[in-house]
């Protein structure tokens, strides 16, 4: 586990976080920067939450695959809580929801932990999705039936099924064996998602009239998307040595980073649309300054399955 690559990756992240903390410290001391104080405060809270995220991830990796699985399972569970809380359901959905929370969600992570690709890739989108409408029908309430079914299915798909593909990276058969390369692969993925979020946000600060979807998120501009994606691709390519892609073609890490950035964008715009419809700004209040858990992992949820499948395909696992 303590190979030079791992140490390099951890060291790099620590330097990055240290630099961010220093910037925050300097910015909050000086009042002549001409920057918006609210912006600095947001940045400060974000940096603090990144420290939390990195510490939790590092701890989970150190404790092994089981703990990492359980951690991701809990994140999924909490995200689904936030999702369903915001979605109006009817009393007739109560028992369906019980099974969704306490059977389907843990089952998915158990199957992922067992590395049973054949099962974990179909249990929710086939059997889960058939179970949900059938159980709602059994409860006898047919009002807005399809709508209610779709809401629960969407929650399961985004918060549980998609997210579970991130820890599933740990079960891939990589060309180089051992825990180190796998943990680094997952860490690389999470790091790229976080960087892509941050960089797209940073690039979007450029005054611009090219808002992508003004009705859904006025902060997402074409400059943000393109600039963010380009910088993430560059950073990802520079980190090629830390990933299992280093044995294959050097450009793979870069392409993967592009995919992560684009899927991350898709995820956050989708979840924004749901929030818009429900008339809220954030999903919850667990991590200060970061809205809810779901606000933090929206990009991860969308990027995880694509990253997982591409890695599986390319590394021929």
């Amino acid at each position, binding site marked *: 586990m303590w190979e030079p690559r791992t140490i390099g990756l951890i060291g790099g992240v620590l330097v990055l976080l240290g630099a961010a903390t220093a910037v925050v410290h300097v910015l909050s001391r000086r009042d002549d920067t001409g920057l918006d104080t609210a912006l600095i405060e947001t940045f400060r809270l974000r940096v603090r939450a990144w420290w939390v995220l990195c510490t939790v991830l590092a701890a989970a990796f150190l404790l092994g695959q089981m703990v990492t699985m359980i951690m991701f399972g809990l994140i999924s*569970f909490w995200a689904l*809580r*936030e999702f*369903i*809380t915001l979605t109006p*359901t009817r*009393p007739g959905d*109560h*028992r369906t*929801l*019980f099974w969704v*929370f306490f059977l389907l969600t843990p089952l998915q992570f158990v199957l992922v932990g067992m590395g049973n690709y054949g099962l974990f890739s179909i249990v929710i989108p086939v059997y889960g999705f058939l179970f949900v409408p059938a159980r709602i029908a059994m409860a006898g309430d047919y009002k807005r039936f399809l709508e209610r079914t779709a809401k629960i299915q969407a929650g399961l798909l985004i918060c549980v099924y998609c997210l579970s593909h991130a820890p599933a990276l740990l079960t891939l058969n990589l060309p180089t064996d051992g825990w180190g390369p796998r943990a680094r692969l997952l860490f690389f993925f999470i790091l790229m998602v976080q960087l892509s979020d941050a960089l797209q946000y940073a690039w979007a600060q450029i005054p611009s009239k090219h808002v992508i979807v003004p009705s859904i998120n006025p902060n997402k501009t074409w400059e943000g998307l393109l600039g963010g994606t380009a910088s993430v691709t560059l950073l990802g390519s520079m980190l090629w040595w830390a990933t299992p892609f280093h044995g294959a073609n050097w450009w793979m890490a870069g392409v993967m980073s592009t995919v992560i950035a684009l899927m991350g964008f898709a995820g956050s715009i989708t979840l924004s649309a749901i929030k818009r419809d429900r008339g809220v700004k954030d999903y*919850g*209040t667990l991590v200060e300054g970061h809205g809810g858990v779901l606000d933090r992992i929206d990009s991860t949820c969308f990027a995880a399955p694509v990253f997982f499948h591409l890695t599986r395909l390319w590394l021929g696992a």
Partner: protein
Amino acid sequence: METRLTLNILALLARFLSGASARWIDSQPDTCQRIYFANHTSHMDSIVIWSALPREVRMLARPVGAKDYWTAGPIRRYLSYHVFNAILIDRAEIKVHRSPVDIMIREIGHTHSLIVFPEGGRNTTGEMGEFKSGLYYLCKRRPDLELIPVHIDNMNRILPRGEVLPVPLLTCVSFGPPIWLEQGEPKFDFLQRAREAVRRLKEM
């Protein structure tokens, strides 16, 4: 009573399980004697409010509950006697000179606060029922107590009436600005005003 540590851990656990976020709207937590009155949608309501209060305030707040429910089974007994320090009302034995209001007034003395659910029973539809007159008589006896309206959102989705298994959604507990019983205010008007104070927290 259990040690402070046990209580704090239990409160933390309850907060985590109910996912409750507490909002104080034009209102501040305070250790002064108060009556927290809330809408009643599930058996977990007292636990949720109790755990949403800051520690110092929580130590002084005593929920009021039905004796038959809160003494059935070892867990409920433990919670009501050792954790919440609940004031239990025997619904079968309500007498004129030992009315629930008398018991509550005697039990809180000059230090404790009360958590009450003036609707009496749990509402089923999500719409709040009419308030019972107990709150009015309580205020008549102790007009100095601050009345804090509390609204619990989503509990009726977490554990609807008649269901045994909960669905772990997130609750939101809102505390509103204090109200008092005005001098000479008729019972009906006061109860309507109190009910409205809870109801309007939902929209804020």
